[in-house]
Every structure is written in C-alpha cells, then in structure tokens.
C-alpha cells in the first residue's frame, strides 16, 4: 500500500511552490503588459531579469549595497531603461503591421544582453550571499527561507502596484483601453507610442524587481534568463493573456505544479510537465484558467 506523506509535506511543497512561482508570475506580469499594448511576446524579459540580477550583485559586491535596498535604484532605472528600449528599438517596428520584426528585435536584444553580461561579469554561476541568505523564518509552523519570502512579497507588491496603476489612474486606464482596442484608443487622443512606452517601462521595472528576488534566492549565470522567459510564457498562458492578476496567479500555479511534480514524480520531469501543461492550456483553454476570451486588437 502506498503511504501518503504527512500533511506537513504538502504544506511545505505548497509554500515552496508558491514562493518560487511568484518569480515566474512577476515575469509574466511584465510580459502581459507588453503583450497587451504591442501584441508582442517580449522574449527578452528573462534576460532583463538576469541583467537586473547581475546589476544587483555588482552593486552589492562593489559598493556593499544591500540587495533589497537596491530596489530603490533598480526599479527607477528599469522604468527609464524600458522607456528607452521602446523608443530606441521598438518604436519604428511597432508601427508595422507585422509583429515578427518586433519579435526578432526582442530575440536580438536577448542575445545581446546575455553576451554583454558574459563580457562584463563573466559566465560563471554565482548569486548574492549576504548575512541573511541562509536564515529562515517560520510561516504556519513551516520553516522557509527568508529571501524566498521576500521575493514573494516583492512579486505581490509589484503586481499590486501595477494593478493599482492600471485601475486607478487615467493613464493606467488608457493602457488598458489601448490593450483592448488600439484604434479606438487613438480616437480618444491616446498615443499608441506613449502607451507602448509605458508598458515597456513598467515591464522592465518589474524585471528589475524580479532581478532582486532572483539575485537573493539562487545562483545564476547570464544565460539563465531564457528559461525564465519560457516559464513566464507558461504562467501567462495559465493565467490568461491580458490579465495582470491572472499572470501572477498563473506563475504561482506553475510553481505549485513544479514543486509537486518534483517531489512526487521526480526532478527530471518538472520542465516536461510544465511545458506539457502549457500546450494543454493553449489547446483546450486558450483564454487561460480564469481568463476572458482573448480579443484581437
């Protein structure tokens, strides 16, 4: 007879899965925003996260700036960088009907970022090790890592702020309007370039926040970002393309799936199952697990 593991294991797995999945989620929120206005799958999002992580690590190693404190640098820099990336790289391509050009630019940006990181920081795998890296805290009687919990909180706060912006400010509402119908939005006097740039700015700022979470939780190398992009894509599909809260939820669900598969089936199966779920969702429920049907702009 198969023995069920004790309930504490389920709790531990759920917690680990949710904490890890929130990383995918915050990456997916960025993808969701950029996809929303530009209809572009920004494949470089993972590379941007790792770039931010490298930046955080460098700030810590060279200037002793605490990685969590560096949020106040990384997020504004991300906002500015996102704006510039749009204006410099995507503005012209965004005017084209054909999104393949934008997609290729994103891929080019990803490879460029990966290789520049290798030049500047080397290709080795390393994380940020602080005095509190190994410390744990207790939640519901379960011991968990302090940095992972912080990462989770950063993901929640980042997503929450984005949702507040989208729901409560007129500019945020304009971004949502443009995601739904860019032509109608332009008839309201909303500039497509402006909303695209805003989506990019927020997307890259979120990548910055995710970079802090990544840098403090596990060792990484310049090429770790692509997997992140893929996982974020899975999270996006799970949560429903076009829904910010759904993207975060999708990431957490993916984290849970991975944690359970890893424990009960085996570590080598986690990615296979994750991408299998991805395809299954796209085939049978393309609007996402709790999404509304996706409307083309």
């Amino acid at each position: 007879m198969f023995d069920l593991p004790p309930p504490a294991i389920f709790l531990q797995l759920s917690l680990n899965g949710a904490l890890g999945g929130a990383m995918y989620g915050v990456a997916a929120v960025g993808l969701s925003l950029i996809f929303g206005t530009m209809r572009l799958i920004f494949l470089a999002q993972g590379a941007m996260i790792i770039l931010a992580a490298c930046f955080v690590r460098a700030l810590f190693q060279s200037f002793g700036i605490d990685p969590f404190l560096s949020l106040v640098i990384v997020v504004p820099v991300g906002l500015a960088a996102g704006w510039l990336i749009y204006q410099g790289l995507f503005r012209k391509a965004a005017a084209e009907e054909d999104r393949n050009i934008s997609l290729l630019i994103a891929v080019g940006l990803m490879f460029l970022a990966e290789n520049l990181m290798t030049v500047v920081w080397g290709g080795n795998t390393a994380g940020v090790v602080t005095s509190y890296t190994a410390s744990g805290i207790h939640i519901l009687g379960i011991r968990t890592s302090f940095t992972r919990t912080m990462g989770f909180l950063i993901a929640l706060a980042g997503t929450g702020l984005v949702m507040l912006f989208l729901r409560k400010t007129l500019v945020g509402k304009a971004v949502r309007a443009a995601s739904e119908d860019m032509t109608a939005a332009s008839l309201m006097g909303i500039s497509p370039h402006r909303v695209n740039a805003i989506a990019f700015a927020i997307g890259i700022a979120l990548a910055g926040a995710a970079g802090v979470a990544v840098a403090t939780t596990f060792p990484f190398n310049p090429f770790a970002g692509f997997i992140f992009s893929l996982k974020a894509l899975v999270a996006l599909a799970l949560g429903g393309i076009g829904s910010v809260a759904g993207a975060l939820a999708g990431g957490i669900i993916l984290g849970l799936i991975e944690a359970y598969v890893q424990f009960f089936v085996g570590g080598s199966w986690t990615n296979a199952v994750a991408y299998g779920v991805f395809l299954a969702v796209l085939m049978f429920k393309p609007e996402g697990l709790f999404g509304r049907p996706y409307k083309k702009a």
Partner: protein
Amino acid sequence: MANRLLEVTDLEVAYGDVRALWGVSIHVDAGTVVAIVGANGAGKTTMLRAISGLVPVQGGTVTLGGAPLAGLAPEAIARLGIAHVPEGRGLFRQMTVLENLELGAFQPKARRNMRQALEKAYALFPRLKERAGQKAGSLSGGEQQMLAIARATMSDPKLLILDEPSIGLSPLVVQQMFSLIETLHKQGVTILLVEQNIHQALKIADYGFVLKTGEIAMQGTGAELIADPEIQKAYMGVLEL
C-alpha cells in the same frame, strides 16, 4: 458665408489598387448637422476614417478651423477637436461605463473639465449613470451606442463624427438616437453624420451630401434632398408613378 469648421477638398483614398474616394469635397459649418448618405460601399466610412487619420490619404486636403489635418496621426487629430464614433462603436467592452466616459476626456484640455463633462453626459444619458459601474460590453445595443456618443462628447469636441449610429438598433431606439442627435445639435454641437437610414438622417440635417461610388453625386439642404425625386427613387424606395 457661414463659419466653415471642416473643409474637405478633393479627397482621394485608395486601398492598394482599389480606389475608394475619387476627389470628394464636403464642408461642415460650425453649429450645423451635416449628413452624408449613400448606398453600402459608396465610401462613406472611408471618408470619415480619412478625416480622423485612420486611413492614409492619397490626395486632397482636410482642414479643421483652417488647420490642415492630412498626415497627422489619429490621436493628434482627436486632440485638435474631432471626436469620431467609429463603425462598431469602438467601446472598451471590458471596462466600465464610467471608465469609458473618463477616457473620452483623456486629452489634457478635457481632463480638467472631467467632472462637469461627466455631469453633462449623465444629464443627457441618465441610463449611463445608473450603469456607471457595469462593463460596457454588458450593455444593450442601444445603450452601447448612447455610451459611444456620450464618450465622444466628453472632450467637448469641435466636431462630432457619427458613423452609422442607428445600425443594428430597434426602430424605437433609432428614434431615440435621432432625437438625441437633435438635442446635441440644439446644444450647439457640430455633427457630421453618416447614415444608411437616409430619410431620418436628411430630416435632421441642415445640409447633406450624397456619396455614390466614391464621388459626391448631389448636395443640398436636408429638405431639398428629401424632396428630390432622384433621391426618393434611388434611396428611399419611393415608386415612380
């Protein structure tokens, strides 16, 4: 001469090799309702889309209050004072009625008068106030059309463009729609209206143009066009005796 607000001269538009407009000239005086009527495929919608910058123009000029519009992006033209209610209404269906109205006043100038504009819109469309928190997509067809028009008035536009406002509505709602347009007219709004509901449109119009396969076939005051036997025969199903 009356105060010319919109002047379209020799407008030419083509989709690839297919020419949709062959040198069309129309004009709209401030404070009037102008109707453009014609059969399906005559180029009515294309002309409106060319005026608001949604389709590129091959030739001719468009000026609003003397300022040239050709070549400007739709958002720039909107900011100059044209509010276009497109075919299909262009509502943000996933957003609430209130959010749709707020976005109608997105332009900086309109944003400052948001509250007054909202009160004015609610006074004209009390139904929308009741439904403020509902998603636009959940409204009935008539309510959606009201919302689209109300949203367009939020920016206090110099020119309100309505593309087939009566399409898909029940006869009763169509009556409401036209009386609403008359109310807006009385409030001093300048309106350029495209309609297939030719008789109704010409009845409320100060001036009208008949568009036929990309060219202006006829023009005159609303009353003149209604009385014209050619138009009665061609568009209103009046039998020749």
